[in-house]
């Protein structure tokens, strides 16, 4: 451990997670308020102790700034909506930690909620584009059938396959490993083990992506409370220290020097976050990676430097990530098997593991936990380096 680890500026002191999945009778704002109350209570704080609130709206446009009023919060010193899509939690936590380190706030709730699922609706109806759609080039995309994130990620994965020889079976190893982890997560929506053969036999959605390569769709909310690391040590839960963070937003280049599908913002943000934390990739004990698709996990592992570029497929097939492996990854089942609260899915599991509260799936080593967030079509990346060493 380097000197930088001894006095981190801030820590995650509280965690709130509502019911997730087919939760139909609640608004996103209502769920967000519950998550903040749960997180404050979990930390041993009253809601009125909060002096900061960062709100990440979901796909339906809520929750918003008005969550302050819903929670009855007065005299906040920090309040903002923050939206970097799936990278939002990393952006919110970095902002909260930096503000706390500079004395601008003392207890900041960061919250996300979403309700894309409707009764009798399926996941694709939740995120698909209706037929009476946009005009111009957006209309052109609809007119050629290029309308779902699944297709764009399939294009990204296919380029990786074509360039490096990555295979669907290799991606399947990620889905199988995460489902094995989910078996021991009571909050996971899918806990029945799957085999590689079942992954291969699952319906092709958009070649090369099978059904089991694709995340769930969930309704629900999650929140964390960020305080100074010092204060966190006097609160109710084991602190999860915030050691480092970085963002990268590469921008979409649509001509012949684009690395779309091959390299993502993780390659830029990951090393910077590790440097801020004063640790190396070899020091990482535990990974919680944004897994909208199995492909995203694989390319993030390469970009963070856990294996050479182009060898992510081979690496994931070697079993490092699964229960019993030497690099536990997405130990709650992730977005593929547990629940989809965008960047809060990996973050929630990082906090549970960092505290040592993961029950049967708890890993031994949790001094350096690397967490990724990914937004849009690989357009926004945030990395967090957390630690459960302060327990």
């Amino acid at each position, binding site marked *: 451990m380097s000197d930088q680890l001894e006095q981190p500026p801030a820590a995650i002191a509280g965690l709130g997670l509502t019911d997730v999945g087919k939760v139909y009778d609640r608004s996103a704002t209502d769920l967000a308020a519950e998550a903040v109350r749960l997180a404050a209570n979990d930390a041993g704080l009253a809601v009125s102790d909060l002096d900061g609130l960062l709100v990440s709206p979901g796909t339906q446009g809520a929750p918003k700034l008005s969550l302050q009023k819903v929670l009855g919060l007065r005299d906040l010193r920090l309040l903002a909506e923050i939206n970097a899509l799936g990278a939002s939690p990393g952006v919110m936590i970095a902002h909260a930690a930096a503000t706390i380190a500079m004395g601008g706030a003392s207890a900041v709730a960061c919250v996300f909620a979403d309700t894309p699922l409707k009764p009798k609706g399926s996941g*694709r*109806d939740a995120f*698909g*584009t*209706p*037929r*009476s*759609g946009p*005009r*111009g*080039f957006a*209309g*052109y*995309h*609809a*007119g*050629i*059938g*290029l*309308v*779902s994130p*699944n*297709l764009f990620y*399939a*294009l*990204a994965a*296919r*380029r990786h396959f*074509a*360039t490096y020889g990555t295979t669907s079976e290799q991606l399947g190893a990620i889905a199988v490993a995460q489902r094995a982890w989910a078996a021991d997560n009571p909050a996971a929506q899918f806990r029945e083990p799957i085999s590689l053969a079942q992954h291969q036999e699952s*319906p*092709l*959605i*958009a*070649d*090369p*992506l099978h059904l089991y390569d694709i995340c769930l769709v969930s309704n629900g909310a999650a929140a964390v409370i960020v305080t100074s690391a010092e204060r966190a040590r006097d609160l109710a839960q084991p602190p999860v220290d915030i050691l480092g963070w970085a963002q990268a937003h590469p*921008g*979409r*280049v*649509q*001509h*012949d020097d*684009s690395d*779309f*599908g091959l390299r993502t913002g993780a390659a830029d943000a990951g090393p910077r976050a590790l440097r801020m934390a004063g640790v190396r990739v070899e020091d990482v004990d535990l990974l919680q990676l944004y897994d909208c698709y199995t492909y995203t996990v694989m390319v993030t592992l390469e970009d963070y430097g856990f294996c050479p570029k182009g060898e992510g497929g081979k690496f994931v097939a070697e079993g490092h990530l699964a229960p019993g492996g030497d690099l536990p990854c997405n130990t709650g089942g992730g977005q593929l098997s547990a629940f989809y609260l965008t960047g809060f899915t990996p973050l929630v599991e990082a906090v549970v593991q960092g505290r040592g509260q993961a029950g049967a799936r708890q890993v031994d080593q949790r001094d350096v936990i690397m967490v990724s967030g990914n937004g849009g079509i690989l357009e926004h990346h945030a990395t967090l380096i957390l630690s459960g060493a302060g327990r």
Partner: protein
Amino acid sequence: MTETPDAWPAIQRDTKSAPFFDAAARDELVIKRCTGCGQALPPEALVCTTCAGTALDWIPAEGSGTLLTWTTVHRAPNRAYTDLVPYTVGIVELSEGPWLYARVDTARPSPDLPLRAEFVHPGDGESYPVFTAAE
């Protein structure tokens, strides 16, 4: 819009896309070019991703390229495409350099497959390019 089975959703132009669809109606492909640095850009570009310049003009493209990546869609993204699956869309790297999202009509898509633009002229909606394997 038509609800006829087997029909692709009709495309409606807007001001910014009008030159692209006018060209497609003439069986021609046009792209953008940055007047500042000369970078060739895809037709939907509004800003140059090389120099951030905003002065772009339209230039003719050969209508040829190679297949950079593709996906064959087996499950309809939503109900509008139920009768259209399976279909293949991809990124075509045009000879001039820009990438174009396009329908790809070939039985055997493969990396770097040479492609040629053909143009479809639906009864309802705008004309647009579909790429097929070059002879």
